[in-house]
């Protein structure tokens, strides 16, 4: 019995050592009075952030749901509640499902329902959408509102749900450690799905742990570091800022949208040492004249991810941040945050880049790439193909979606491991050269770093307009992807008013079509499919 107990205790230590919150809890002990988070003009030390998170974790434990998966949603952005909420959900032993008030409430409801979450933590700014999100949800949901005192009005409107305000929260002492399996879900992130329904990517503790271990070592993160937090929580790159910083006692500096409109000022005002954003943010800064040589001497690491990084941007950034290393990261959510990296080098990189794009470099240690042809057989060095990847960061698949999981997570001929099909076209390096990103195999595009399945836009437009012939295109084309979405309909015009509005109510703003073009017949190619190239020519020819 005693031996069994000892075994259990050592096993618990082992699992806690590797779970997502392990580094944070260690930093609470080691750096308790150092800043962990700056948000909304407030500085929270590690101890303060831990206490807020523990309150939420203990509250969630007090009101367990009889059924439902070990997942809890966090409907909060750029607030202390958002960060404490994510930590609280993890400390309770659940995975978190981030929701975003920038998305249409209808989409947020779909995510909440699809995830099966029975509890959600909400900040005051997101609370305004709560009525719209709860509309039509019959099964009881626990709604935790740590920024709100009285909850009586909500309870009266929604008798089927339970509301917990600040006064009813548990105390931090009531929280106790929960054992977490490394294979359990740390976060469930919804990404655009080509059939019109967002799909949830399961990210396991094991996956994020591998990323954290590599990044913290590779960049020698220390308690002196100050991290940017440019990504919304619904964007998987946000996981990196938080947990890499907390792993080593560093501080996460989360700007408001208002501050983020002037990223250059934010870098210097917040005294950032680590920058992480989509390349579009750098493009924006360049347009505002904010990439002058030597502008950001305090940065020591700059990372870009989420879309192709133009060579011009890398050059401008490395001049603006002369003391910083610059890394181009690459990776779909299914391979956890990022899985390849390329260090920009003023002398070497120009010859290694192609088509004006910085290479995506080499895989993280432990990640195994495979560049394949259409039958999933490996191509020869120097040839182009689809990038497949496996390794410790490989996601367990899509939430409650075995069909789509099976289609994207495959065993290529003659291989024993499951690989994820990225759908990205790359060139297989000759010798030890870097991987080059060439484009997409399918109709997925990137807008401001966001993954957009054109099929999802088409599905929503088709449903709302009641028209079968619909083609969505990324337009105008940019080096990194596309500026926005435009759609072609085989129709004379909209059958009813407000249809465009209905579409906008269902899609995030970056996915909502900018323009609608009506054609009596959509052109077909030789295979009888809609001819996208002809439609692009049509757009190019428009006055």
């Amino acid at each position: 019995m005693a031996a069994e107990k000892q075994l259990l205790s050592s096993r618990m230590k082992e699992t806690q050592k590797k779970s997502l919150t392990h580094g944070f809890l260690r930093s609470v002990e080691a750096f308790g009075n150092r800043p962990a988070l700056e948000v909304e003009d407030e500085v929270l030390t590690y101890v303060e952030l831990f206490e807020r998170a523990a309150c939420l974790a203990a509250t969630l434990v007090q009101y367990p749901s009889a059924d439902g998966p070990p997942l809890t949603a966090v409907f909060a952005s750029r607030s202390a509640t958002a960060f404490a909420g994510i930590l609280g959900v993890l400390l309770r032993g659940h995975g978190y499902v981030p929701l975003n008030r920038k998305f249409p409430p209808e989409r947020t409801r779909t995510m909440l329902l699809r995830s099966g979450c029975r509890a959600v933590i909400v900040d005051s700014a997101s609370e305004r959408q709560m009525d719209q999100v709860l509309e039509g949800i019959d099964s009881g949901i626990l709604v935790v509102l740590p920024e709100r005192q009285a909850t009586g009005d909500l309870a009266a409107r929604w008798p089927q749900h339970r509301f917990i305000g600040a006064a009813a929260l548990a105390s931090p002492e009531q929280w106790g450690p929960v054992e977490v399996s490394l294979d359990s879900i740390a976060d469930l992130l919804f990404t655009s799905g080509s059939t019109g329904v967002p799909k949830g990517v399961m990210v396991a503790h094991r996956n994020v742990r591998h990323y954290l271990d590599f990044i913290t070592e590779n960049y020698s993160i220390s308690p002196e570091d100050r991290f940017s937090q440019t990504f919304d929580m619904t964007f998987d790159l946000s996981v990196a800022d938080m947990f890499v910083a907390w792993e080593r006692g560093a501080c996460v500096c989360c700007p408001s949208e208002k501050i983020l409109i002037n990223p250059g000022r934010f870098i210097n005002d917040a005294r950032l040492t680590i920058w992480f954003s989509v390349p579009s943010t750098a493009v924006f800064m360049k347009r505002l004249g904010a990439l002058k040589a030597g502008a950001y001497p305090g940065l020591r690491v700059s990372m870009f991810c989420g879309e192709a990084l133009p060579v011009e941007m890398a050059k401008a950034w490395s001049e603006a941040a002369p003391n910083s290393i610059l890394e181009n990261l690459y990776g779909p959510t299914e391979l956890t945050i990022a899985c390849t990296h390329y260090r920009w080098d003023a002398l070497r990189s120009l010859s290694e880049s192609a088509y004006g794009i910085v290479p995506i470099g080499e895989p993280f240690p432990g990640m195994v790439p495979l560049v394949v042809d259409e039958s999933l057989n490996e191509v020869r060095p120097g040839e182009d193909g689809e990038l497949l990847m496996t390794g410790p960061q490989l996601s367990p698949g899509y939430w409650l979606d075995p069909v789509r999981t099976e289609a994207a997570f495959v065993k290529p001929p003659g291989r024993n491991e499951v690989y994820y099909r990225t759908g990205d076209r790359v060139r297989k390096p000759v010798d030890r050269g870097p991987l080059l990103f060439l484009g997409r195999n399918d109709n997925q595009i990137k807008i401001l770093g966001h993954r957009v399945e054109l099929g999802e836009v088409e599905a929503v437009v088709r449903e709302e307009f009641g028209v079968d012939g619909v083609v969505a295109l990324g337009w105008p084309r940019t080096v990194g992807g596309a500026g926005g979405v435009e759609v072609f309909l085989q129709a004379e015009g909209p059958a009813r008013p407000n249809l465009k509005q209905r579409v906008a109510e269902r899609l995030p703003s970056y996915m909502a079509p900018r323009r609608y073009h009506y054609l009596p017949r959509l052109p077909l190619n030789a295979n009888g499919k809609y001819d996208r190239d002809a439609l692009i020519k049509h757009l190019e020819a428009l006055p």
Partner: protein
Amino acid sequence: MTPITENDVRRFLLDHFSATIAANGLSPMDLGGDFDLLATGVVDSLGVIEMISAVEQHFKITVDFEPMDPAELTMLGKFSCFVAKNAVDSRLSP
């Protein structure tokens, strides 16, 4: 190129964002020059890039935003006025 007026830019933006504005429960009629597209959630910080590219694409212009205070980029009136004053025919610029 016919010169672009502040009103042209404003009208384009209101049309461009009409669905989002309506989805936020606002009416384009209520929106004055001091209307902040960011504070009301019509655009976010990254959305401003999309907004600029949409305006440039529509009017076939390029605009040098360097002299502009970024805080004013999302003010409907300030942005429209700045674009009208600083628009350069994109077919003329390199």
